[in-house]
């Protein structure tokens, strides 16, 4: 209490870290019970998880490979959420980003590495950004709920993807209809491997850089200030003359851009092609953003947590024989308990606030009774 009062920023960060850590422990404890119920040894299972995620250079590299899209996706969700936009369309935006980035790479433009990689990433990011901005414009112009429009745009994106890698093969030589994928991305367009003899690619650095840049944009620029104002209070934004429509549109563009980078980094870094299959990462990204409290630095750690679970769970299945479903349940438990503790903390803070002799909060009627 005292700590929080005098070092508001520090205290809050510390308590967030502590609660999140506690939440993960609770989830693991409940998970252990479930594993035990299904007649397996939780100790073995968790040993396999830790071993799989951290046991050696290769394991760590795989963890970071799995972390990369989680961070970018979590950032995509976070920046939209800061403007009070609920972006469920990350999956669609990442498909568009992956497709467009991979097409540029598959076209083999004969450029040097230094030009080709950034170009392909940029095309993927901007394509995702445009896809993300559409629901922003729709909401700004007509008030259409982004929850609905992003879901619909997801399906549209999936159809475009399948069309481009199959039927479009008739007129487009950059795709391979047999594989339902683009052609192989030119070596000069591939994100370079940053750790020898592993799959860890430069997409990880892109993700970390994106998080730091997004932090700077949100908390150090007037643009970020406007996004946050719009997200926290539309009325105050209006009062301050901040244009709501254009701000949410820009935030959604940024969100889509990050989702597009997430898709492009997967195809240009990890897979070498754009395949037409769903990873579902775009939906996991929502959880990453929430667990990271929509804070770019929080998202790095949340992304890491999800990366650890993902790479460790493979080992859990392989070494300890834990079923895939249990692994998924474990992930769900982590999400559940982190968000539950977060809301508990929120409620406690609010109760302390109302108790702290400020019932004036109630003096402003929000009844909406009169004109």
């Amino acid at each position, binding site marked *: 209490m005292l700590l929080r009062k005098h070092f508001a920023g520090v205290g809050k960060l510390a308590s967030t870290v502590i609660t999140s850590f506690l939440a993960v422990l609770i989830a693991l404890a409940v998970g252990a019970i479930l594993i035990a119920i299904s007649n397996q040894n939780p100790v073995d299972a968790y040993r396999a998880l830790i071993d799989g995620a951290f046991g050696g250079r290769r394991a760590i590299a795989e963890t970071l490979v799995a972390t990369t899209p989680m961070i970018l996706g979590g950032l995509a969700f976070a920046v939209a959420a800061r403007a009070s936009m609920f972006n469920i369309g990350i999956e669609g935006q990442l498909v568009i980003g992956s497709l467009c980035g991979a097409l540029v790479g598959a076209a083999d433009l004969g450029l040097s590495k230094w030009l080709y990689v950034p170009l392909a990433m940029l095309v993927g990011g901007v394509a995702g950004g445009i896809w993300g901005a559409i629901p922003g414009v729709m909401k700004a112009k007509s008030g259409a709920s982004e929850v609905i429009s992003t879901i619909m745009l997801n399906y549209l994106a999936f159809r475009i993807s399948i069309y481009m890698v199959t039927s479009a093969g008739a007129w487009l030589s950059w795709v391979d209809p047999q594989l339902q994928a683009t052609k192989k991305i030119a070596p000069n367009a591939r994100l370079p491997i940053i750790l020898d003899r592993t799959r860890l690619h430069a997409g990880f650095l892109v993700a970390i850089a994106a998080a730091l840049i997004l932090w700077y944009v949100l908390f150090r*620029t007037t643009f970020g200030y406007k996004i946050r104002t719009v997200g926290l209070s539309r009325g105050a934004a209006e009062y301050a*003359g901040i244009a709501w429509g254009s701000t949410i549109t820009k935030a959604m563009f940024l969100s889509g851009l990050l989702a597009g980078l997430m898709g492009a980094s997967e195809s240009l870094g990890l897979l070498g092609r754009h395949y037409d299959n769903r990873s579902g990462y775009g939906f996991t990204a929502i959880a990453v953003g929430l667990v990271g409290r929509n804070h770019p630095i929080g998202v790095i750690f949340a992304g890491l947590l999800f990366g650890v679970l993902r790479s460790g769970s493979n080992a859990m299945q392989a070494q300890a024989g834990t079923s895939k479903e249990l692994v998924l349940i474990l992930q769900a438990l982590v999400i559940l308990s982190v968000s539950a503790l977060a809301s508990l903390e929120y409620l406690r803070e609010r109760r302390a606030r109302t108790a702290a002799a400020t019932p004036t909060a109630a003096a402003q009627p929000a009844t909406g009774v009169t004109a």
Partner: protein
Amino acid sequence: MTDSARPNAVEMRGIVKRFPGVVANDGITFAVRQGEIHALLGENGAGKSTLMNVLFGILSPDEGEIFVNGQPAQFHGPRDAVNAGLAMVHQHFMLVHRFTVAENVILGSEGSGIRLDRDSTEQRVSQLANEFGLRLDPKEVVENLPVGMQQRVEIVRALYQGGRTLILDEPTALLTPQEVDELYVILERLRSGGSTIIFITHKLREVAAISDRVTVIRRGKTVDTLNTADTTASQLAELMVGRKVSLQVDRPVGNPEGVLLEAKHLRLRGRGALDALDDLSLTVRAGEIVGICGVEGNGQTELVEAIAGLRKPDEGTIEIAGRDVTGKNPVDLRRAGLSYIPEDRHNRGLVLDFSLTENVMLGNIDERPFSRNGLVDYGEGEAVTEQCMKLYDVRAPGADTIARNLSGGNQQKLIIAREMYRDPSVVLAVQPTRGLDVGAIEFVHKQLVAQRDAGKAILVVSFELDEIIDLSDRILVLYQGRIVGEFASGTVDRATLGLLMGGRGLDEREPINAVA
């Protein structure tokens, strides 16, 4: 009331209620006689609401005892309190907007049967309403009722539930002066009907107008319980605040100069057939406070939004210091010299989850020293904020405090500080003291007068008639989107203004122009 042999309707002894870091009630003793109207007076945050929540079983006390009609009572929830004959009329009505009056009244006591006998319920509701002269149509849908009528629905519900002791939490907060008078009549009827009434308030005028006795609490402690007839307003104010307070705004005659704000022939279409603003013109001069009074919903919101650049008028022009600013956005208006203290602190004036520094930047974010080339300078922002806090006595641990954690008075001071920091030529202040306690009101009024004396043009819009009368050099009465009366300070009384605000006296006379 002299019958002291009867047990007290409610008695609370040594109530202590602690919250993390705060003792909201610190040994409060509070006794209400049967059949009296007892005012519970205290500033915001003094512990009134906590005490009533304890009485009503919403909170359980850490220490202390409660007696109802002489019997020890232990409430584990509001239902227990209702069963003991207590009823609460909340400040923010707990009504289902789409339900009829009757449906709302029986809410919570609808019984466990499957069939709802609509006719007999409606009959009973209307019988109960008529008994106390409340005049309610049980079939009317609540959202169609004016605020004062909605409150009556709450009162009837309290009676329907068998409430003999009614707790009214700041019941006048949302009412017009006329509705307040009507409420007083209702309360007196209830008292003659044998009901006991606890009237929570922080307004001295109300204590004097309606209560038999008054208990003053300050910082969680009982200060005193007195017969209202034996007290004076200034004595009560001193008990409540803990120091001498000047109730009169110290306002030497102003010295108005050139026109700084001028609205000409404003017209704004309303939702219905009537125009929200109907050919409205007004001027405010430098060094002058102009107050606009009127019943809520007569065009205040539209007028304010038009001047503040939130809505474009359909016809007419607005000028600031001679420059046409009609239809400009709020940013341009600020640059033209307008400062705007909005009615709604929480949803307009502040971003509650922002720090004080970020709130001082609100509306100024693109200006120096707050930002440069799109980059925010938090260091400069913090320096300005600290300066603002010092000048306007904003009490908070630091500039990085979250605005939500401030009391209403301090939040309002911060808004005023921000709006004055810009050194505006025109100040638009809407309900500037709404929900504030006596000490904060005094401060805000002093600041507005000081700004006037510094040569600014000040336009105050308020539903508090006293505030308009105390503060204004010139008073305008707004009725149905038109100015129906204009008076120089001191040339008009409450009654005349009240009549004009209600649209009466218009047919007989031409609009009065006391100032030629």
